[in-house]
């Protein structure tokens, strides 16, 4: 799948991945990959900035921990992020239903 197709929806899918609970950055990226059956296979290093932007917007939060002598940043949904996800999910369901209806409709001759 072309990465640009995901661009407008990356925020929503990242929020959805974090809906189940906190995850560190690489776990978010793995969930994105496996949850889409490999369709969303972005360069891993480019997904972190999207997480940082969501944090700047207050939709997710992060906590630093020291694990095995290394620093680890774990992300979680904020209440605002949960509300945004609900809203984006509703918009997407409406949009995808409309597009599916149009794209799967059998071709009929236009009436003039």
């Amino acid at each position, binding site marked *: 799948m072309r990465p640009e197709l995901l661009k407008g929806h990356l925020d929503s899918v990242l929020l959805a991945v974090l809906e189940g609970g906190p995850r560190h950055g690489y776990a978010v990226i793995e969930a994105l990959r496996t949850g889409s059956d490999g369709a969303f296979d972005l360069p891993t290093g480019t997904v972190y900035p999207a997480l940082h932007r969501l944090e*700047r917007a207050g939709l997710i939060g992060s906590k630093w921990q020291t694990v095995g002598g290394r620093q680890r940043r774990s992300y979680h949904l904020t209440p605002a992020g949960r509300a945004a996800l609900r809203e984006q999910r509703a918009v997407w369901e409406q949009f995808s239903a409309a597009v599916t209806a149009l794209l799967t409709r059998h071709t009929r001759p236009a009436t003039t």
Partner: protein
Amino acid sequence: MTTEAQVSGYLTRVAAELPGPRRHRARILAELRDGLDHAVAAHTRTGLPSDQAVTAALDEFGSPHTVAEAFAPELAIAYARRTVAVFILTGPLVGIWWLLLLRPDPWRTGALALLLAIPVLPLIVAAALTAATTLATTGRLIRWLPETAPDRAILAVGTVAALVLLGDAGIIAVYAYSGGPLHPLAFLAILASLSRIVCGIVTIRHTIAWRARVRGTNG
């Protein structure tokens, strides 16, 4: 080359291309390091020998240039927010001396008297408004307000720096032309403005470099 050397070499190449505030860069590198460790472990679990697992992990992350380019917009926003916040917070430290020095007499004579006494006030107000707008449209309020793109945020920083620079140079010129006495208060006011002029020039130079880096990015 050892596994550790490969990962460290990769992170060094990313670091060399990462612009922006040092603290932000350090946190990004720490996070990438943790992610790479996880990626190497994941590839090792699939049965790859350690050197191939590292190569696969680095391929998965993308080239150092790709990763640094991906972070540039967020780092530009971090730089813009930090810089305008510094201008907002330090503004009163400069303005207070000029206000004490040039305040209209008697004190409460309205905005027009204040404007006549400190003619560069509109420049400072414009700078403060630009700075406040930049902070608002790059932070948590972007859930409700239109988000400022990184290149616009950098342009706003340059604008704020240019406005305060003009304001400081202007007020020093006005005071010098009026033949005001050089007593301690005037000395402090001029010194504060000269310091900010230097900061303004440095900031404008930084914003020119940033603009070249993030031109055309939308975050």
